Structure formats: C-alpha cells, structure tokens
C-alpha cells in the first residue's frame, strides 16, 4: 500500500474497538423500515399510485442503506455507491411511473 494511503479512521470499528457500530444501528433501522413497509402495504386506502411510490421508495432507501453500510461502499467505494444509488432511484421512479398507469 502506498505511503499516501489514508489511515483507518477513528470511527472504524477496527481502530476504535467499539462493540457496536453503524452495522448494528443500520440493521435495526432496516427492520423498522420493513415494519413501516408492511403497515403502508396493508393500507388499502392509499391507491396503486401512492402505494407504489411509497413502497418502492422505502425499498430504494433500504437498498441504499445496505450498499452504504453493509457493503461498506460509504467508506470504500463512494463513486460506486453514487452509481448504484442513482440506478436504484431510477428503477424506483420507472416502476412507480409504470404502476401508476394501472
């Protein structure tokens, strides 16, 4: 590794030795968002367009969280995270636009 390589940041669990980190908090957030997804999906009054917008939006948010924290792209591949995030947002909007026609 070159001399110019960045050092492990203080927030890195390897350096800090903390028992809990971003991975654990993200897991709890993902479970909470899944519960919210179920509640929104069970609300028949929303209609197809709104439910598609909200449900696919929640899916996109959860996928980006997984990419950023679980896949470590926030620290080790920010350009890839940007590209993947943009792709998922486009997918969300495309699915919403198609479903809203129904």
């Amino acid at each position, binding site marked *: 590794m070159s001399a110019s390589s960045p*050092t492990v940041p203080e927030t890195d669990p390897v350096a800090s030795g903390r028992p809990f980190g971003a*991975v654990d908090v993200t897991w709890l957030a993902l*479970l909470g968002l899944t519960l919210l997804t179920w509640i929104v999906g069970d609300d028949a009054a929303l209609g197809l367009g709104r*439910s598609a917008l909200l449900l*696919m939006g929640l899916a996109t948010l959860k996928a980006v969280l*997984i990419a950023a924290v679980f*896949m470590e792209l926030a620290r080790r591949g920010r350009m890839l995270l940007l590209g993947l995030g943009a792709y998922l947002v486009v997918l969300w909007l495309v699915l919403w636009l*198609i*479903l809203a026609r*129904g």
Partner: protein
Amino acid sequence: MTATTQNPEPAASGEVSPAPWHDRLPGGVVVWVFLTAELVTFSMFFVAYAWTYSANPDVFTESQSHLHRLSATINTAVLLTGSWMAARAVWSNHRGRRADLWLWGAAVSGVVFVVLKTVEYAEVLSDGFSMSTNSFWFYYLFVTFMHYLHVAGGVGIMAVVAVKARRGDYGPANALGVEAAAIYWHLIDVIWLFLFPLVYLVG
C-alpha cells in the same frame, strides 16, 4: 492461517496504520461485475412485472390477495438479519476475530427463508395455482423462484466460506473471500427488498 498481519495499532502520534483491505473495493472487482449483471437482469423482470400489472390491475390485485403478506414480511426480516450477520462476519474478519459463527448465522437465515418460501409454494400449488393460471402467477412463480435459487446457492456459499474461515484461511490480510460472500448475500437481500413490495404489497 495462511496469511496474517497484526491488527492496526495506534501509533505514538495517535494515528493508526492503514489496514490492508481499506483502500480496496469490498469483495474485489469481479463480484461487482456479477452483481451489476444480476441487478440489471432482475430489474428487467421487475419492469416486465410492473408493465403487465398496469395492463391487468384487477387480475393482479385479486391474485395477490391469495399470498401471505405477513409471512413475506417475516422473510424480509430474516434476510435482513442474515445480511447483518454477513456484514458482522466481514467486520470480525477485519479485526482478526472469528468470522465463521456470523457466516453460519447468515447461512441459517437463508435456510429459514427457504423453508418459509417452500411452505408458501406448497400452499400456492395446492390451491391450484400454477404458472399457466394467469400472468400474475407466471411472474410470481418465475421471479420469486429465481430469487429462491439464489438464496439456496447463497446458503452453500456461506457454508463453504464459514468452513474455510474456521480453518483459518481468512484474516485481515486475506479478506477477499469473506467480503465477496457477504456482497453476494447483500445482493440477494437488495433484490428481495424490491421483489417483496412489488409482488406482495403494491396494489
């Protein structure tokens, strides 16, 4: 252990030395090429599903009502927990700690998912639904079964990597195998996160 380095220790200045994995793309480039191909393939299935749904909303809504939303929600939580365990395995491996138990945990979560999904398939088929019933059941059975096969394959990958991790084949200086397995597991999760609301909830 085939390749070992000490964990980064704080230097006298308070800084820590670079970890060997820190500047590298997690899992290596090849796994990301694979991930991109998989994601694009499933995206096309999702778009085709949505397109067919918008043309037949009544058929899809009626067919969806036969599925168990709660069971699918529980399966989502199971997969997310497996993903958390896979991320924890990478975290532990980077610290030079045991990663195999976390990997086994992820594999078990995959087994739970497969069992719940198998029960769901059995119920659907015993109710008389098949791929030829209508376009909803075609997409439901085809796309979710494709994902099911990915999860079953992921269980095998996790088990193999767990055995190798227990044997000491991985460590902070040799993290690629654990990272690649974890990235694959997260991919399965990301695909399901779109599949779950699309097939079970939207409508």
